[in-house]
C-alpha cells in the first residue's frame, strides 16, 4: 500500500466524519463544536491561499488578509448596501478579492523573497487604513453588520444560515469544493509549472514556462481562495471588519501553513484546525496562550520542517509494507 492510498482513505474518513458532525455532536451535547469546526474550515481555506503561494510557488505572502477582507466586505456591502441575495453577494466577495489580487499581482509577482513579502504587507496596510477611513462604505472602526439572506428556497422550505446545521454544511461544501479544486490544480500542467517556478525560475524558463505569468495566475487564484474564505467568514459572523485585513491575520495564515505542512494539500487545514483548537481550549484559561502557539511553531520548524502533514507522510513511509 502507498502513502497516497492511505491518505486518500483517511481523507474519505475525515470527510465522512465532517459530514456526520451536525448529527453526531448533539449526541455528546457538543453542538458548540459545530461552529468551531465551521470556523476551522474557513481558516483552513484561508491558510490554503497562503500555502498556494508559499508552498507551491515559493512566494511568502504576508498580505492574504487583504483578499480575505475584500471577500468579507464584498459580501457585507453586497447584502447591506445593495440588498443582494446569498449567491450574488458571495460572488461579489470572491470577484472583489480576485480583481484586487489581479491588480496587486501585476506589481507583486515581479519581486521575490523579502521584497515580495514586503510589498504584500504594504498593499494590505494601504487597504486596511483605507477601510478604516471609508466609514460610509465600510463602517470604519465599527465594521458592517448585516442579516444574512437565505441560501435557497425550495417551495415552503427555506435554507437559512440561521440554522447552524445549514450554515455548517454550506461552509463544508465550499471548503470541500475548494480543496478538490486545489487537488486538481496541483496535478495539472499549471500545478506542475507552479512547482517548477518554486524550485528554480531559471530552469522553469528553460522549459518554456513564463515565470511571471505563472506567478501572477497563482497570485490571483490564491486571492480568490482567500476571498472565498473571507466571504464565508462574513456570512458566518454576519459582519465585516477592517481588523481582518490587518497583516497580522495574514501572518496567522502563514503560521498555520508552516505548522500544518507547506506544499501539502490538507496541511494548511490541519494547521488551522490545530491552532484554532489551541486557541479555543487555552485562551479561556490562560491569556498568554499565544506563547504555546509560538512554541508549537518553533518546534515544528526545528523538528518537522515539512509540518505535521510532512512528518505524517514520512512516518507512514517508514512503516513496513508502505511505499512512499
Amino acid at each position: 500500500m502507498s502513502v497516497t492510498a492511505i491518505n486518500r482513505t483517511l481523507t474519505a474518513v475525515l470527510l465522512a466524519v465532517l459530514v456526520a458532525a451536525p448529527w453526531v455532536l448533539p449526541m455528546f451535547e457538543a453542538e458548540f463544536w459545530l461552529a468551531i469546526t465551521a470556523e476551522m474550515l474557513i481558516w483552513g481555506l484561508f491558510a490554503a491561499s497562503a500555502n498556494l503561494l508559499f508552498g507551491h510557488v515559493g512566494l511568502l505572502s504576508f498580505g492574504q488578509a487583504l483578499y480575505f477582507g475584500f471577500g468579507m466586505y464584498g459580501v457585507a456591502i453586497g447584502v447591506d448596501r445593495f440588498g443582494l441575495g446569498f449567491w450574488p453577494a458571495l460572488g461579489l466577495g470572491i470577484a472583489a478579492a480576485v480583481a484586487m489580487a489581479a491588480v496587486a499581482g501585476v506589481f507583486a509577482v515581479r519581486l521575490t523573497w523579502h521584497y515580495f513579502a514586503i510589498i504584500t504587507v504594504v498593499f494590505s496596510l494601504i487597504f486596511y487604513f483605507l477601510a478604516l477611513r471609508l466609514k460610509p462604505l465600510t463602517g470604519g472602526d465599527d465594521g458592517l453588520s448585516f442579516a444574512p439572506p437565505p441560501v435557497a428556497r425550495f417551495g415552503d422550505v427555506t435554507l437559512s444560515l440561521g440554522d447552524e446545521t445549514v450554515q455548517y454544511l454550506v461552509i463544508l461544501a465550499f471548503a470541500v469544493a475548494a480543496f478538490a479544486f486545489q487537488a486538481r490544480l496541483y496535478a495539472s500542467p499549471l500545478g506542475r509549472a507552479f512547482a517548477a517556478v518554486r524550485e528554480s525560475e531559471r530552469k522553469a524558463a528553460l522549459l518554456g514556462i513564463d515565470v511571471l505569468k505563472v506567478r501572477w495566475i497563482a497570485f490571483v487564484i490564491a486571492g480568490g481562495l482567500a476571498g472565498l474564505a473571507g466571504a464565508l467568514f462574513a456570512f458566518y459572523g454576519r459582519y465585516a471588519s477592517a481588523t481582518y485585513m490587518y497583516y497580522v491575520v495574514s501572518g496567522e495564515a502563514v503560521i498555520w501553513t508552516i505548522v500544518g505542512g507547506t506544499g501539502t494539500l490538507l496541511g494548511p487545514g490541519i494547521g488551522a484546525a490545530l491552532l484554532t483548537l489551541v486557541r479555543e481550549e487555552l485562551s479561556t484559561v490562560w491569556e498568554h496562550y499565544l506563547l504555546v502557539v509560538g512554541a508549537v511553531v518553533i518546534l515544528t520548524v526545528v523538528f518537522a520542517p515539512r509540518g505535521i502533514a510532512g512528518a505524517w507522510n514520512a512516518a507512514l513511509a517508514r512503516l513496513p509494507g508502505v511505499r512512499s
Partner: protein
Amino acid sequence: MVEPLLVVSGLAARIGRVPILAGVDLAVPARGIVALLGRNGVGKTTTLRTIMGVVEATAGSIRFADQDITRLQAHLRPGLGIGYVPQGRGIFPLLTVRENLYLGLRGPADPAIETHVFERFPRLAERLDQKAGTMSGGEQQMLAIARALMMRPRLLILDEPTEGVMPRLVNDIRREIAAIAASGIAVLLVEQNLRTALRLARHVVIMERGHTAFAGPPESLRADPDLAHRLLGVGAPT
C-alpha cells in the same frame, strides 16, 4: 542549398561587465550532430545559454528555423522546438521523475512520444514516482534528455551530457544521442571527450577565447593534428 536550422552569426555576450563571447559563428543543419568544442572557459556554455536566451546577446544574431530569435524571451524559445539539457542536467531534484518529465508540457503528453521516450529510457518508466534527486547521475542525465524529448524538439542542445556520469552509463548516453540524431532531431553537443565528439559529430566547431576558431568536418581535424593540439590542447584521435 537548404537553410540550416540554427544559425548563429557574430554572437557577442557578456556576463556582468565581463565580455565572454566576441564573434561566435556556427550553424546546425536540420539533421545530424554538430559538436561544439574548446578548452575550459572559452565560452561554450555561455554560447548555449545565449542561444537559449538566458544570457543576453550584446551583438550578432541567432536565427532558428528562419526566424530571428536574438531578442526573443527565454521562455518562448522551447516552444519553437529547441530542447536544452544544461550542464548539471537542470532537473528538479525534489520533484518526482514523472513531474520532471511532464513539466515542459502545456497539455497532455502525446502518447506516441511518451511510448517512444519510455522505450528509449526504460529505467525512467520504472522510477516514475521516485524523487529525481535520488537517482544516479546517469539516470538524472537520461531524465533531462527524456524531458527535452517529451517537448518534441527539432533541435536538442546538450551541454556536456556525460559529465559526472559513471563510466558504465556513459556509453548508453552516447548511444542515445546517436539514436536521437538518427531519428531526425538536430543535435548541438558540447562534449569534453574529443574522441566521442568526433565519432558522433558530422560537423565540428571549435571555440577559442569567445569566438569561433574552426568550423569543419571532423576529418579536417583528424588530418591536422597541430590544429587540434593548438585549439584543444590535445591531439585529435585517429
